[in-house]
């Protein structure tokens, strides 16, 4: 493994860890604005990772992906989120199901779990980027945890987006990205999904006078 690759490996791992870090940060913050910011930074790093992989992996398609990602997740979606946040009123994530301290611990555990689970991948892989794979899976878990443990519709959306980021990161690190068309298709889905979600959040807002998902418990049994 030559120096060129080691650098790549270190950089990619660094990128991955930073991405994960922002996921954890997100767990730590309370206000929706902070959530959105954290997500934004995370997406920024993520697109950087894509560019990185594209550069070292000599895959120029990935630049396009990186740009698309930048546009989508750093500008468009956060902008929408902000607007949504202003429209539906900024309710803080006052009391999540799991309090901050515990959340952070759980996040740590999840990452360790991710390490445990992804060992075979790291084993079999010869890619320089394999070091980041556990982190990516960890990010997926963290994203899941955010969705589970937060009780505002908006925060759940953000959690979902973080999950998406984790998967994108996984894709970048494992496979240097899938085909361009598919990647773009995926982004399109993400965008549409996000838009639909926000529409429904408006609905929730209009019908329930709040976006606290606590009250979404009429349908049971």
């Amino acid at each position, binding site marked *: 493994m030559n120096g060129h690759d080691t650098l790549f490996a270190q950089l990619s791992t660094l990128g991955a860890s930073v991405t994960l870090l922002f996921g954890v940060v997100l767990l730590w913050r309370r206000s929706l604005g902070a959530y959105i910011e954290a997500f934004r930074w995370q997406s920024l790093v993520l697109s950087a990772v894509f560019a990185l992989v594209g550069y070292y992996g000599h895959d120029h398609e990935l630049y396009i992906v990186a740009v698309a990602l930048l546009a989508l997740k750093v500008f468009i979606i956060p902008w929408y989120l902000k607007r949504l946040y202003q429209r539906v009123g900024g309710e803080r994530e006052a009391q999540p199901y799991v309090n901050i301290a515990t959340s952070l611990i759980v996040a740590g555990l999840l990452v360790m779990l991710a390490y445990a689970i992804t*060992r075979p991948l790291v084993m079999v892989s010869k890619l320089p980027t394999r070091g980041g794979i556990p982190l990516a899976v960890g990010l997926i878990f963290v994203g*899941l945890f955010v969705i*589970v*443990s937060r*009780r505002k519709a908006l925060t*759940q959306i953000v959690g979902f987006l973080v999950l998406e980021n984790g998967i994108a990161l996984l894709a970048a690190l494992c496979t240097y990205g899938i085909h361009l068309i598919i990647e773009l298709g995926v982004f399109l889905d993400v965008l549409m999904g996000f838009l639909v979600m926000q529409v429904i959040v408006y609905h929730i807002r209009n019908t329930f006078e709040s976006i606290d*998902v606590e009250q979404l418990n009429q349908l*049971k049994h």
Partner: protein
Amino acid sequence: MMTLFIMMISAYAAGALGALLIGRGALGRGVAALGACCGSAAGLTLGMSAITSGRTFTLASARVMPVAGLMARLDGLSAFFLIIIGLLGLAVALYGYGYSASYERRYSLRMLGAMLNALLLSLSVQVVADNALTFLISWELMSLSAYWLVLTEHDWADAVRAGVWYIAMTHSGFAALVAMFLLMSGGDLTTSFAGMRANAAALSPAARNAVFLLALFGFGSKAGIVPLHVWLPMAHPVAPSHVSALMSGVVIKMGIYGLVRVALDLLGGGPVWWGGVVLGVGAISALLGVLYALMEHDLKRLLAYHSVENIGIILIGIGAGMIFQSYGLMPLAALGFIGRLYHTINHATFKGLLFLGAGSVLHATHTRNMEKMGGLIKRMPVTALCFLIGAAAISALPPLNGFASEWIVFQSLLGGFNIPKPEVAMMMPIAVGMLALTGGLAVARFVKAFGVTFLAIPRSQEAEHAHEAPLPMRAGMALLALACMALGLAPFAVVPMMGRMLAGLGELPDTRADFTLGLFLAAPNGLPNGFARMPPTLVAAGLLILLCLTPLVMLLLRANRKLRVSDSWGCGRIGQTPRMEYTATAFAEPLRRVFAELYRPTKELTIDFHPESKYFVQSVEYRSEITPWFEKYLYDPGLWFIRLLAAVVRRLQSGSLSAYLVYGAVALLILLLIARM
């Protein structure tokens, strides 16, 4: 053969379709009845010709079913049950034509006619089925058509409730049967019964036991053995009476058919304890059935409980037979099975007859409560006579058919002392005792049933203005009444046939149990020849002669022949009202006290006195109820448990989104960890 078979099938099908198309009106009923009649007649002839010729026929094998073909084969056993179906079908169809007239514009005659034919059709196919698939499909169709028939009078709640109970029990039985056949056929349901016989021999003992127990459960739930009988007293009363006759006479017998077919034919007998279990179940069913029947004042429920008893009696015989078989006492085994099959057809006739009679009473008085009846013998003499014959037959009184079959079973049980193991042999006298007790109680019950219903003074307006049943109904009853007598008087014609029919099943020999000459059984290990003899024909003849002689004797003794009709003696009181009569409850009281341990009756006596002085009683109210404790101690806990589980599972769907997501996440993590293991 083939043509007869086709005729039978097509007649039933035509009847069903006709009923569906035409529906109400005399024409619709007529078509339905006609189809049923032709079909059952064809079936009857088919069975007769098959049984007399003593040969077996392969009837149909066509690739009709998706998963496999239908296969039909007619051997002695099938032929015998075809006869039962045909006989009862005929009577029921006749009767039903008249009976269902009262349903015009109240309930769907379409459904009634179609389903009646469908039921008969599925029954007939059932008994000739020659592979598991055919058997199971016809079984399910039978259950289903019976289900719709039970639901005919669906605008009262307990009909619907009964329907649900019925379908629940029978369907769980069906599940057991599916499992059983799959075990026996090694997964392929299209293997013919011949193939299964071969498989069964190869099965491991454990598998064979599993098959047997599954069969006992599956068929038992249909036959209504205790404690799987709960649906029976619910479903039979609410069904239209001719349908109840069919269900009680034939449908539950399919359980017996299946049990014999599987345990005796396919498995070819088993260890002693199989027989023991069957015997025990039979004894319990018989006793409990009769005891609960005693306490019933709903005429049809009484009969329904009685069906439980008779299934029990039949199972006692089968169990004994199986025990003998497993000890290699083949002639005795054959005798037991003969007695049972004989009792099966007898029960079909007299139980059918009684249900039809009850139907006529219901038709005339619009009530099933015996306490509201009475004096009907004057208003509906034909029905009364038929019912009397049925009651006498069912109480095993000579010279009717009930006695004949009872006699054989007694004889076969007497053979019990040939069993080497005393502890096993002791089961026989106990069974005899049980049998005798049920017999005696049966007499008690039918004295009550007939006496309270038909004799003395009418207890209500309805009974006062009762009217005789229309001709078709009377015809149906008369047919079965004649059958009762014929079967009772001519066992020497019936029994050898059955011997020939059973020959070969589970290596049973061809037993020549010839009544007029006594039972000469080819005797292994010290079974005396000429075991006993009983020609019912002669007994009947003798009774008849004596009956005629007695008046003559009276003449000779110059007895006074004057007769004066006047009030019955009321201890000096003038004028007798129905309220002075002995009620059904009172009639059953002594026996209820005797068996109080079992009934656990709840009593409450409320007397309210006159306000002025406590020496004047204004009213006395006595209420006593019997808790049927299978529902209470067996089913309620089961249902409770299911509800509990349901409540637990229900809590999963708590409505909390986060909880839902947690399920998913946890599932993911667990599976991932498993994957890493």
